[in-house]
């Protein structure tokens, strides 16, 4: 029986989605609780992925493939988890994220989204070319804890400030933590526009969001 959990963890570690799904199905057949399959199998595997990444052995594609295997398995288990779902999300946080108006670059944000999903956070991905107004609406609609604002171009990073200014105008600034990302950014820029955090890459992003939510 134990070998099922180990195999789930190691197929996540290898980033093999179909193997992961096979082992999760076997776990269900063998009578494991869905939540145990997640915490003792999937998450255990993902933790090892994180360690390997930090040790310099794993690269981004290893992370992404593992995260995809993980989120595929979560989708599979979702129907069994309805009762626990609210509690899990409450714990991990609700994130609204998007790329600013005038900017159509999605890849950096997509990596962040995938990593956050794998960390169990509930993500409301608004996509690219998102106006300040749409960010505000989505925060209210989804009762977000954290807002992630992405911009890749020197011509569009100014939009990040507009979003934060509009948050202030709408009296929402204290209700949500703001994290910004994008290649031309810096800590200095994040401070200047009034963000709570800046992350240079997706891994740092997930860590900082956890810190913002005081979970780490």
């Amino acid at each position, binding site marked *: 029986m134990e070998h099922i959990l180990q195999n789930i963890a190691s197929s996540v570690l290898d980033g093999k989605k179909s193997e992961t799904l096979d082992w999760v199905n076997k776990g269900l057949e063998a009578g494991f609780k869905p939540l145990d399959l997640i915490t003792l199998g999937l998450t255990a595997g993902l933790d090892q992925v994180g360690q390997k*990444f930090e040790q*310099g052995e794993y*690269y*981004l*594609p290893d992370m992404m493939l593992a995260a995809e295997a993980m989120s595929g398995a979560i989708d599979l288990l979702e129907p069994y988890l309805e009762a626990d779902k609210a509690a899990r999300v409450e714990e991990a946080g609700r994130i609204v994220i998007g790329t600013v108006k*005038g900017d*159509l*670059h999605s*890849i*950096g944000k997509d*990596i962040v989204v995938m990593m956050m999903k794998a960390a169990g956070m509930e993500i409301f991905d608004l996509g690219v070319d998102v106006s300040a107004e749409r960010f505000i609406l989505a925060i209210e609609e989804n009762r977000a804890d954290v807002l992630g604002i992405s911009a890749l*171009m*020197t*011509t569009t990073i*100014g939009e990040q400030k507009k979003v934060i200014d509009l948050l202030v105008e709408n009296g929402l600034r204290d209700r949500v933590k703001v994290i910004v990302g994008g*290649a*031309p950014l810096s800590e200095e820029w994040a401070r200047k526009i009034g963000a709570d955090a800046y992350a*240079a*890459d*997706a891994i740092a992003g997930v860590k900082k969001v956890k810190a913002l939510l005081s979970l780490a």
Partner: protein
Amino acid sequence: MLFEPLTAADLQLMHDVTLKILSETGAVIEGEEAREILFSSGCREEGNRLLFPPRLVEDCLADPASVTLYGLDDTNILPLTEAPRSYAHNFGSVSVLLDPQNDIIREATLDDLVSFIRISDSLPYLDMVVPSLRPVDLPEEIASLAMTAYTLQNTLKPVDIGTASDRWEVRYLIRLAAAVRGGLEPLKEKPMGTISISPLSPLNFPADISEAIIESASSGLPITMLPCPTRGLTAPLTLAGGLVQQNAEQLAFLTLARLVNKDTPLVYTCRLAAANMRTGFVGGKDPDLGFSGACVAQLARYYGLPSGVYGMDTGSVLPDLQSGYERAINCLYPVLAGATFISGMGLLNGGLLASAEQLVIDDEIYGMVTHRQGGLEVSEDTIGADVVKAVMNGGNFLAQEHTRNYLRKGELYTGRLGNDSPFEEWRSSGCRTVRDAAKERMEKILSDHPGVVIEQSVCREIDAILEEAKIDKKGS
């Protein structure tokens, strides 16, 4: 004699697979006007993508229009089609710089932009001036246009008219360039530069971009097709895969542009880079940067188009050793491969930082890299057997006419910046580094530059266009 890493069979396969990608996978093309044009020419839709019939693409590739750029004073003319050598230009649209006075990283101001343009205008090996810095003190809504305006006012060399992100910008960029050239017709006859337009990778043309392409192509002015895929993030990790994907992006761009206007002159330019696969950052220090430029030059030549590639870039934050070896290596490949344009003079840190010192040092690097680009002239006279005989008969090489003549003709590269003195002399003259020399040269250039190079009346016209754009943008 060119360095050509791709064989004829490689090129054929890359072309065939490109057509296959365009006809079977297709490209996302948004914007009603572009879709209409492509549908009526035989493209069809599948899912959210347009499929390009191979025959249509082949037809659009036939008989490419030739391109020549003309500086304002007619002394700087750059034939791009069958260019006799590789041309160099500086980077574009960077908002942060390394201050040469104190090595502090800070945001660029309008004064910095003007300085960068004037330095670029003065450097002998820099052929085309690109609107380089994006200053924080320009009104944001017209920043791109203002960058072009200040560039046009401060150089007589060919320029990049600007990078357009929508139809509105194309219209105003053309008006600015036309004002400087003295009208739209003279501008078409003697364009001083191209308009650059970037699709998204992979294979994605948003409505604003397809409209910008249509607007530019209709004007008849030359366009720089500028896909910027990143291997491993927005293109296959393999260099061959990245090259073919960007080729498909080029040919989709070209097909649309030439359906709008068969005579559209096009420059096949690509910024193909690899990301650091641990962070996703495109640091610019990969030696494939230069090698891919050589391949892009070959692909462009295969289609009879001029090319533009990365060359001078580095992951380094300082104009240091790392910067020196990375940019020299990456610049050498495309120059040896006969690329038309080499980009990146003055650029640091994978494109995030600008440096005036580096700009000056790059002029030196480019001078050295291109010194023998024309090949070696081997003749009875260059060999100079008679001179050997004369010296053997009791003469002196220094006292030969042959020596002096060829020295004057530029047989030796005479460095301008780096040290070539014995250490004693170097020490007694203050232990100057190449950065000290670059800084000094930069200051001299700035004090010698004549300043604004166009007439007051034209400057006023430019100001009026910018003012109109500001009001127009607010109204929209």
